[in-house]
């Protein structure tokens, strides 16, 4: 005979189990349904993403100064002359173009005309603007000011102002948004132009009311004390087709979306009665600002890794004088994980990434800003591979175990375990390999695949 108390216990247990099963089944059905609206993620206050006072890997030495800002493309011919003693960027580009034409004629998968032009279309916004001009103008483009609208500029407590800006940024397409205080040390000393032979402009801070772009200078008002840093997620499935011209479209789209988001956000802020400077990779170092704003941590890639999208993001930012509450840096165990993983360094076709166990102050070349701790990369080798392959690669981004789709729940759990229990990091890396993550996908399949597969961003 079954006692009453036992019967009740079992019934309650079964009821609970039934609820769990029903919940799980509903969620599974949800996972089977096609993806709906574009993804916008609010950072949840999870146990595994800890707020910290200082970003991880933020140690600096007294020789940490503002970076010259000379970009790699401008530096390349000079570096090549130093390194190889001959050749030039122009000559290499010409040879790459010849090879590219041949690949298109042969319809090589990932390098066909359609593959190439997919990226060309995606570059449209980014390639038709430049720092301080057009959509990236440092002054108002077309928005009407509060005065023109017969009202006063918007004013509210800093937390509310921060929420306004974050909500607007997410609407425009930001995947992650964070706010940090201005740090002049992260702002470049120079702003190079399009022409590598043209002298770079000085980036200066001055006691002025509005930002300005002159013939020789980019002037940032000292009253701009806040930086909004934004991460734009890249399409992981498309990115996984790298290193091909098809896969490059994911990078291109990330940049063009960045232009749209920062341009829109800057106009929004100006419309509230404040000044705003939108920027993508130009003018300042995006990674340290993103670290300060709690968007992610510095990794072995010497790039930012976010908890949500891994390193598969493009960073952009807006400087403003609008007072806002700032976010705190985060720690979710990336540095410890990178010490054991090294998957990106193994996957890098140009062997440009460090295999060192520990990050250090040891830089590799003039493209690295000295005085801070990192796993410094060999950008010369990296860019040389770009020239050789005719693509902008991105294999390091796709091979990172933090770069995952958002359909399988287990990813979140694994990232949490890596954050809470670093001792199991080597096992997690082995599992990542065993499950076949981070492998290049066949480019020719992209055009015919189911549109919902693994799409993010």
């Amino acid at each position, binding site marked *: 005979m079954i006692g009453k108390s036992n019967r009740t216990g079992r019934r309650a247990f079964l009821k609970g189990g039934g609820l769990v099963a029903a919940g799980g089944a509903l969620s599974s059905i949800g996972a089977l349904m096609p993806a709906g609206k574009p993804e916008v993620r609010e950072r949840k206050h999870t146990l595994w993403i800890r707020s910290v006072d200082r970003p991880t890997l933020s140690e600096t030495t007294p020789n940490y100064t503002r970076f010259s800002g000379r970009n790699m493309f401008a530096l390349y011919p000079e570096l090549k002359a130093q390194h190889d003693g001959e050749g030039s960027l122009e000559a290499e580009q010409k040879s790459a173009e010849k090879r590219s034409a041949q690949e298109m004629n042969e319809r090589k998968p990932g390098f066909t005309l359609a593959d190439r032009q997919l990226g060309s279309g995606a570059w449209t916004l980014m390639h038709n603007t430049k720092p301080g001009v057009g959509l990236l103008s440092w002054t108002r483009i077309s928005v009407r000011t509060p005065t023109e609208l017969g009202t006063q500029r918007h004013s509210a407590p800093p937390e509310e102002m921060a929420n306004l800006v974050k909500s607007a940024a997410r609407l425009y397409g930001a995947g992650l948004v964070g706010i940090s205080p201005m740090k002049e040390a992260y702002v470049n000393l120079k702003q190079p132009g399009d022409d590598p032979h043209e002298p770079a402009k000085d980036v200066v801070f001055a006691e002025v009311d509005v930002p300005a772009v002159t013939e020789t200078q980019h002037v940032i008002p000292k009253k701009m004390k806040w930086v909004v840093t934004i991460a734009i997620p890249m399409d992981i499935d498309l990115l996984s087709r790298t290193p091909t011209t098809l896969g490059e479209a994911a990078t291109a789209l990330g940049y063009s979306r960045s232009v749209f988001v920062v341009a829109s956000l800057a106009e929004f802020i100006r419309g509230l009665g404040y000044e705003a400077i939108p920027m993508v990779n130009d003018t300042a170092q995006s990674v340290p600002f993103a670290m300060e704003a709690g968007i992610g941590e510095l990794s072995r890639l010497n790039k930012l890794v976010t908890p949500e999208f891994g390193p598969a993001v493009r960073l952009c930012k807006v400087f403003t004088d609008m007072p806002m509450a700032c976010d705190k840096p985060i720690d979710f165990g990336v540095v410890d994980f990178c010490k054991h993983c090294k998957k990106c360094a193994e996957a890098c076709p140009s062997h440009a990434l460090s295999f060192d166990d520990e990050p250090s102050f040891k830089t590799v070349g003039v493209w690295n800003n000295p005085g801070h701790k990192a796993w410094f990369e060999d950008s010369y080798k990296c860019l040389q591979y770009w020239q050789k392959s005719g693509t902008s690669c991105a294999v390091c981004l796709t091979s990172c175990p933090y770069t995952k*789709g958002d*359909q*399988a*729940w287990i990813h979140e759990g694994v990232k949490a375990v890596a954050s809470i229990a670093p001792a199991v990091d080597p096992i997690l890396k082995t599992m990542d390999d065993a*499950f076949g993550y981070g492998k290049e996908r066949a480019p020719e399949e992209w055009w015919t695949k189911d549109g919902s597969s693994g799409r993010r961003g």
Partner: protein
Amino acid sequence: MSESAESFTITIRKRPWWGWTVAGLWLLAELLFVQTAVGSMREGEGRAAMISWIVAAVLLAAGLVAWLRPQRTHKQANAQS
């Protein structure tokens, strides 16, 4: 189940509390692997999906065998000892 000329006697045996706990954990693990398999398919991660389906299938089979296997009655146990 025992049988006499006129009736059947059905014995419903109580499973211990830990039996139900293990069953609950098994159900959760099963759901996790099925979800991982479905999610991985949607992510285009073929190998991860295949491994997850295999783990889910093995887990399902093991769970069913453990749940349904005939258990010894007290009489059988006493007779053996």
